[in-house]
C-alpha cells in the first residue's frame, strides 16, 4: 500500500453531506478556522437544485501559497452521505484519507486499499449525548469538525472564538456547540493517531484579505454605485445578489424615520424587471436587475430598446450551466455571446468580467458610471462559482472624493441658455448624445423616446440615410466605450515566449496556479486576463505578438474565442480553445494538462479539450 499523503498547509478536503442536514454552518466553521490561522483557503459549495434531501458537497482548498482556484483531486474526504459513498470514495487521490461515521459497520469491500480510513462513531456519540432528534443531527456536524481539528491540528482556541462571535448575544447556543466540538476533538485525540499526514501550521499569509461571496459584493457595489431602483425576479444563482443589495441598502440608506432611499421591486418576471430598470433609468434614477441565463433570454427585446433608445441599464448575470434550464446550481461562463450581442437587429453591448468578489464590488459600482456615460446596457457577468461561494480576496476599496458620473445630461439652465438639444445629436464627436430627464424644463428639452428609427432630433423617420447615420453613431459610441471599460491585465512569463493564454472571470484563480505549475515545468506562457468587452486594442496586440494563444473558458462553444475572432479579425487557427464545461469550477490541473500537453507535444491541433 502506498504511504499516506503528507502535506502541510497544502491539501484539499471535501465534505459530502445531505442537503438540509445543517452541515453548511459546521463546514463554514471548519473553513474559517483555517483562515483565522493565517492560511489562505478557497471553499466551494457544490449543491443540487433542491432544499432538502439531495447530495451536497463542500470543498476546501488549503493553500499556503495562496492558490484560490480549484486544484482538482481530493486528499481528505469527509464522507457523511451514504447515497454518494461510492463516488466519494472513488474521488480520493491515492494515498489520501477517508473520514467516515463508523457507528454502523461498513464491509471491507466498500473501502479502497490505497486510501487511509479514519472511522469516528459520530452517530453513536450523538445518540448517547443528546435525546432530541434535531440536536443529534446538528451536533453531529460540529462533532466531526472537532475530530478534524485534532487530526489536522486546527487551533481549538480559534474555533472557540469563532463560535462566540457567531453566537454573540445568544450565549446559550454557543455553549452546546462548544461542547459538541470538544467531544469530537477529545474522542479523536484518545482513539486516533493524531495528527494525520495532512497538517496545518499557523502562518501569516492571509493579510488583510476578506472572505466574501461575489453576489453580496456586487450588491454592495450597486449601493456604492448609487443605484436606487432594483427590480428582479428570483432565480438561482442570482437571488442572493438582490438580497445583498437589500441588506446593505437597508443598513446604509434608511432615514431616521424609517423611510428608504431606495426601491426594490420583486417583479412578476424578468421582462418586467428589465422594463422597470429602463423606466427608472429613463427618468434619471440608477437602476439594475440581477438574473441568470434564462432571464437574459427573456430580456432580449428590452435590451434592444435600451441599446437603440440609449437608456442606461445595468444587468448582473450570475451565469449557470445552460442551455434551457440546464444545471441551475452548476457553474458556467456560457452567456458571453448572449450578453455581448443581446437582442434582434445589429446590437453590441458592454460586458464586464470580474474575476472575484473584490472586482464584483468594484465593477458593480463602476457599471453605473459606465452605463450613464455610454447611455446603453452594461452587463456584469458573474458566475455561480464567484457569486455563491465565499472567496478570499483583496478588501473592498473606496475613494471618498469619487462622485457619480451621470454622463451627458442637459440641465434646465443649459436649455434656458439656448444650448442646442438634439437627443440623438453627436455634439462632441464621441458618438454619445445628450439626454434630458423628464420634467426638466417647461418648454425646452422634451422629446419622444421610441424604439423606432428617428433622426438626430428624435423625430420618427424611416429615411435610410438618417437610419444609417444613427447606426454609425452607435458604432462610434462603441469605439468610445473601449477607452472607458476596465483594461486587460497582463502577466508576463519569466522568459520570452511565443505562446500566450487569454482567460477571464472565475477561471483566473485556477489559471494562476496552472501558470506557476507550467513555469516550474519550463513551459513559459504570457497571460492576458480580459476584463471587459469591447476589447481594448491591447488584446489585439497581445494576440499578434504570439504564435498561438490559448483561450481558457468554462463553456462548450468557446464563446469568448468567437467574440475575439469576430471583433478583432483574428484567424481561427491562432486561438486554441481550452474548454471546461461540466458544471464544476475549472481546476488548475485541468488547465495545466490542457496547455502543457499540447505545448510539449508541439502539435497544437485546432480542437477543444474535453472537460475532465
Amino acid at each position, binding site marked *: 500500500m502506498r504511504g499516506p499523503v503528507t502535506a502541510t498547509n497544502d491539501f484539499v478536503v471535501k465534505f459530502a453531506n445531505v442537503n438540509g442536514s445543517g452541515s453548511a454552518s459546521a463546514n463554514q466553521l471548519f473553513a474559517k478556522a483555517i483562515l483565522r490561522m493565517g492560511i489562505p483557503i478557497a471553499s466551494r459549495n457544490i449543491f443540487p437544485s433542491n432544499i432538502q434531501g439531495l447530495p451536497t458537497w463542500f470543498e476546501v482548498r488549503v493553500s499556503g501559497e495562496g492558490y484560490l482556484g480549484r486544484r482538482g483531486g481530493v486528499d481528505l474526504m469527509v464522507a457523511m452521505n451514504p447515497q454518494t459513498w461510492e463516488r466519494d470514495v472513488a474521488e480520493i487521490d491515492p494515498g489520501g484519507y477517508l473520514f467516515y461515521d463508523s457507528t454502523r459497520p461498513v464491509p471491507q469491500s466498500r473501502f479502497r486499499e490505497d486510501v487511509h480510513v479514519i472511522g469516528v462513531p459520530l452517530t453513536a456519540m450523538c445518540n448517547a449525548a443528546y435525546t432530541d432528534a434535531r440536536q443529534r443531527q446538528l451536533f453531529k456536524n460540529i462533532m466531526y469538525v472537532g475530530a478534524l481539528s485534532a487530526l489536522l491540528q486546527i487551533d481549538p482556541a480559534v474555533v472557540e472564538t469563532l463560535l462566540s462571535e457567531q453566537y454573540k448575544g445568544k450565549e446559550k447556543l454557543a455553549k452546546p456547540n462548544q461542547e459538541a466540538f470538544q467531544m469530537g476533538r477529545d474522542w479523536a485525540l484518545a482513539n486516533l493517531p493524531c495528527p494525520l499526514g495532512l497538517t496545518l501550521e499557523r502562518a501569516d499569509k492571509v493579510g488583510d484579505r476578506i*472572505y466574501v461571496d461575489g453576489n453580496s459584493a456586487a450588491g454592495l457595489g450597486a449601493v456604492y454605485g448609487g443605484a436606487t431602483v432594483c427590480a428582479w425576479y428570483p432565480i438561482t444563482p442570482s437571488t442572493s445578489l438582490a438580497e445583498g443589495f437589500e441588506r446593505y441598502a437597508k443598513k*446604509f440608506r434608511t432615514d431616521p424615520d424609517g423611510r428608504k432611499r*431606495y426601491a426594490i421591486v420583486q417583479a412578476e418576471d424578468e421582462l418586467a424587471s428589465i422594463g422597470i430598470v429602463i423606466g427608472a433609468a429613463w427618468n434619471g434614477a440608477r437602476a439594475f436587475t440581477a438574473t441568470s441565463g434564462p432571464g437574459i433570454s427573456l430580456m432580449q427585446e428590452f435590451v434592444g430598446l435600451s441599446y437603440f433608445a440609449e437608456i442606461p441599464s445595468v444587468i448582473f448575470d450570475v451565469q449557470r450551466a445552460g442551455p434551457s434550464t440546464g444545471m441551475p446550481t452548476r457553474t458556467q461562463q456560457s452567456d458571453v455571446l448572449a450578453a455581448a450581442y443581446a437582442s434582434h437587429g445589429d446590437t453590441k453591448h458592454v460586458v464586464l468580467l470580474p474575476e472575484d468578489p473584490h472586482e464584483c464590488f468594484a465593477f458593480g459600482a463602476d457599471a453605473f458610471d459606465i452605463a450613464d456615460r455610454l447611455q446603453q446596457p452594461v452587463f456584469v457577468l458573474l458566475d455561480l462559482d464567484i457569486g455563491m461561494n465565499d472567496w478570499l480576496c483583496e478588501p473592498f476599496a473606496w475613494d471618498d472624493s469619487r462622485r457619480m458620473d451621470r454622463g451627458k445630461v442637459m440641465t434646465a439652465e443649459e436649455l434656458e441658455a439656448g444650448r442646442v438639444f438634439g437627443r440623438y445629436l453627436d455634439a462632441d464627436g464621441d458618438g454619445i448624445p445628450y439626454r434630458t430627464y423628464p420634467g426638466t424644463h417647461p418648454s425646452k428639452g*422634451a422629446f419622444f423616446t421610441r424604439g423606432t428609427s428617428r433622426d438626430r432630433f428624435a423625430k420618427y423617420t424611416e429615411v435610410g440615410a438618417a437610419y444609417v447615420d444613427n447606426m454609425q453613431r452607435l458604432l462610434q459610441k462603441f469605439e468610445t466605450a473601449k477607452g472607458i471599460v476596465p483594461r486587460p491585465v497582463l502577466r508576463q512569463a519569466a522568459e520570452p515566449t511565443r505562446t500566450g493564454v487569454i482567460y477571464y472571470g472565475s477561471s483566473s484563480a485556477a489559471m494562476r496556479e496552472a501558470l506557476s505549475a507550467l513555469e516550474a515545468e519550463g513551459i513559459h506562457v504570457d497571460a492576458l486576463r480580459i476584463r471587459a468587452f469591447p476589447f481594448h486594442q491591447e488584446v489585439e496586440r497581445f494576440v499578434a505578438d504570439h504564435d498561438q494563444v490559448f483561450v481558457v473558458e468554462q463553456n462548450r462553444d468557446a464563446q469568448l474565442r468567437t467574440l475575439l475572432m469576430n471583433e478583432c479579425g483574428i484567424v481561427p487557427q491562432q486561438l486554441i480553445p481550452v474548454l471546461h464545461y461540466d458544471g464544476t469550477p475549472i481546476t488548475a490541473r485541468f488547465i495545466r494538462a490542457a496547455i502543457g500537453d499540447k505545448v510539449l507535444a508541439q502539435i497544437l491541433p485546432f480542437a477543444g479539450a474535453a472537460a475532465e
Partner: protein
Amino acid sequence: MSFLPKPKLHHPKLPTNALGYTRRDYEGAISTLCAGCGHDSISAAIIQACFELDIEPHRVAKMSGIGCSSKTPDYFLGASHGFNSVHGRMPSVLTGANLANRELLYLGVSGDGDSASIGFGQFAHSIRRGVNMAYIVENNGVYGLTKGQFSATSDKGSKAKKGTVNTDEAIDLVGIALQLGATYVARSFSGDKDQLVPLIKGAMRHDGPAFIDCISPCVAFNNHEGSTKSYDFVREHNEAMNRLDVITSRAPITADYAPGEVREVEQHDGSILRLRKLHAEYDPTDRVAAMHHLHERKAAGEIVTGLLFIDPDPRDLHANLGTVARPLNRLGDALLVPGAAALEAINTGLR
C-alpha cells in the same frame, strides 16, 4: 391622416387657464391615425382634461406600448417627455419611471392588444402593485395596425370585418382592474366626450392606480354590422351609471341639484368628484357591489360606463415600499454612497 402642418399661430383671444396656457399648448404632433379614429377623440379629451386641470405639460410623463393606441402620446402634450416602449410592456416601464420620480404625473396609454393579450400580465401586476398612474386603454376590440385580427377584448360571438365569428371569451379589463385593487375604475366611450373628459380629469387627480377602459371604435376594421365595438352598437347599448364633474378650487359650485341626486367624493389631493347619479342604487365606493353590478348588466347585454369605483383614500406603491418623499432621481452622492469608513467596517466583518 392629414399632411398639412398645423400652424403655430393661434387666435390672440384663445382662452387661457390658470397657468396662462391655451389649449394649443397641450397639443402634440399631427395624428397619423385614420380619419374618424376613436383614438383621436381620446387624445382630444386628454388635451382638454390637462388644460382644464391647469397641469404643467412638462410635469406629465406619457408612456405607451406598441399599436395604434400607443402611437397617440405623440399627438398630445408635445412639451411632455414621452416613451413609446415595447409591445405590452408599458406598465413595467411606467412603474420604473414612477419609482424614479414620484413627483411627476404618469399617464399610461395602451390598447386592448397591448394590455389584454401580450401585456395582460404587466397590466395586472401594475394594478395590484398600486402604481400611482392614470392608465387608459383605448379599446377597439381589434388589431388595427396588422389589419383586423380579433383581440382578447372582442366579445364572444362578435363578427370580424371579413366575417369570421369570435369563439373566445372576452377579457373585461374593468373587471380585472376591480378585482386587483385599482382605486379608480371607469369605463367610457370615445364618442362621448362630455363623459370622458371628467373621467380623465378625475384619474389624473387620483393618487393611486386609476384605470379607464375607453371603448374606441376602429373605423377601418371594427365598425361594421356584427361588431360589438362599433359606434352604432356602443351608442345603442351604453348604460351610464353616473355623470362626473371634477371640481378643483378654481371651479365654484354653480348648478342646482335635487336632493339625493348628487354624491360628492373628496379625493386625497383635495379635488372633489361630483357624481350625478343616473342609477339611484349604484354605489361607486362599494367594490364588491360594483363587480356584481357589472356582471349582472353585462349578462343583460349592456355596456356599463361612468365612474364605476372610487376609493378616495388610496395607498400607492411608494407608500407600500416606504420610500422617501424626495424623488429617488434627485438623491446625490451624500445620501446614496456610504463612503470609505463604512466600507472598512464591512471589510473588518469579513475577516
